[in-house]
């Protein structure tokens, strides 16, 4: 038995294993998502479940998988930096609506962090979990960097961020009706501030202004949340 596990160990600790299985699982996730067309089938969620399942079933050590995982992690910072290109592409509407955009994103980021902090205290969650959940409304790369620098566990942050995004994309139309948000600028910013890129995919379906505003909120709320957590932590 130990012979088999050492062979598995040796074969899976090549970077090609971790990177390859991640790419294959994500590809399956994208295919399923296109076929079923529901935000519940998020490609990232499907990929994570598939990879985690393979690791657990075949007793592949996480550290072996992570040899390839680290290669993929290398692209996180470049992807975050490129959010600048997405904001820059919307510089025209940013110029026109800079005040509502800044005010809305600042208020939304503060409301998100404030409500998370209060509830974590209320539920008696420890420091580590609180730090992991605090940045959960902003886009994954920024949330992960904040959690990393403030004593949180990045993988818990990733889970909370995705769950929040899925919630936002499912309930955005309902929330717009409940809170009577008739202004498309307000609706778009609210979706982007509360549920980042996953919510934005829904905002794009609702309308062009909503989509653009939601996309803008991703980068700006991310930045404001970094500043707020820097001041608070």
């Amino acid at each position, binding site marked *: 038995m130990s012979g088999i596990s050492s062979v598995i160990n040796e074969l899976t600790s090549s970077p090609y294993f*971790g990177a390859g299985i*991640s790419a294959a699982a994500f590809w399956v996730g994208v295919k399923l998502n296109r076929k079923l067309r529901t935000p519940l089938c998020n*490609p*990232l*969620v499907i*990929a*994570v479940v598939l*990879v985690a399942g393979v690791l657990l079933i075949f007793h592949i050590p*996480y550290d072996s998988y*992570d040899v390839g*995982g680290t290669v*993929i*992690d290398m692209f*996180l*910072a*470049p992807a975050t*930096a*490129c959010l*600048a*290109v*997405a*904001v*820059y*592409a919307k510089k025209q509407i940013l110029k026109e609506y800079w005040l*509502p*955009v800044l005010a*809305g*994103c600042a*208020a*939304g980021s503060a*409301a*998100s962090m404030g*409500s*998370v902090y209060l*509830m974590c205290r209320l*539920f008696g969650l420890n420091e580590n979990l609180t730090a992991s*959940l605090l940045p*959960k409304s902003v886009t994954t*790369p*920024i949330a*992960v960097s904040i959690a990393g620098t403030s004593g949180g566990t990045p*993988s*818990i942050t*990733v*889970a909370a961020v*995705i*769950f*929040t995004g899925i*919630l936002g994309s499912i*309930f955005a139309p309902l929330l717009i009706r409940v809170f009577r948000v008739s*202004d498309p600028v*307000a609706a778009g*910013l*609210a*979706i982007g*501030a*509360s549920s980042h890129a996953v919510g934005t995919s829904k905002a794009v379906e609702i309308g062009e202004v909503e989509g653009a505003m939601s996309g803008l909120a991703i980068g700006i709320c991310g*930045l404001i949340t*970094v500043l707020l957590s*820097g001041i608070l932590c």
Partner: protein
Amino acid sequence: MKIIRQVGIIFAVCWISEVVERFLPFSFPASVIGMLLLFFCLVTGILKVEHVQEKADFLLENMAFFFVPAGVSIINYFDILKNNVLQILAVCVISTVVTFAVTAYVVKAVVRLTAGRMTAGRNAAEERRRKS
């Protein structure tokens, strides 16, 4: 060659932001410094969007993929999650609703205020025109 140049530019931005992070007196994530640096370069015209377009599109469109390893590492934290899963879900649901509502109402209020000022300004200008 074009893609190689774009990869070079974006990796250079990331490396410079890591250097900046190292020398900042407070903690600030390097990836966000990279975002600010790239935005600054685009606004000032040091870089043009064409210099990074395809590589940026590739990274932005496939953003979720780069989080697969981070997501998978959750299998190391099952114990912490198991005991608190309901609380964590509640935190996510409630704060999403609160964030949505606060953002929407603040934007609505600001739009109404600035629109009010703009129409007031327009009315004043019209009045002046009528008087003259």
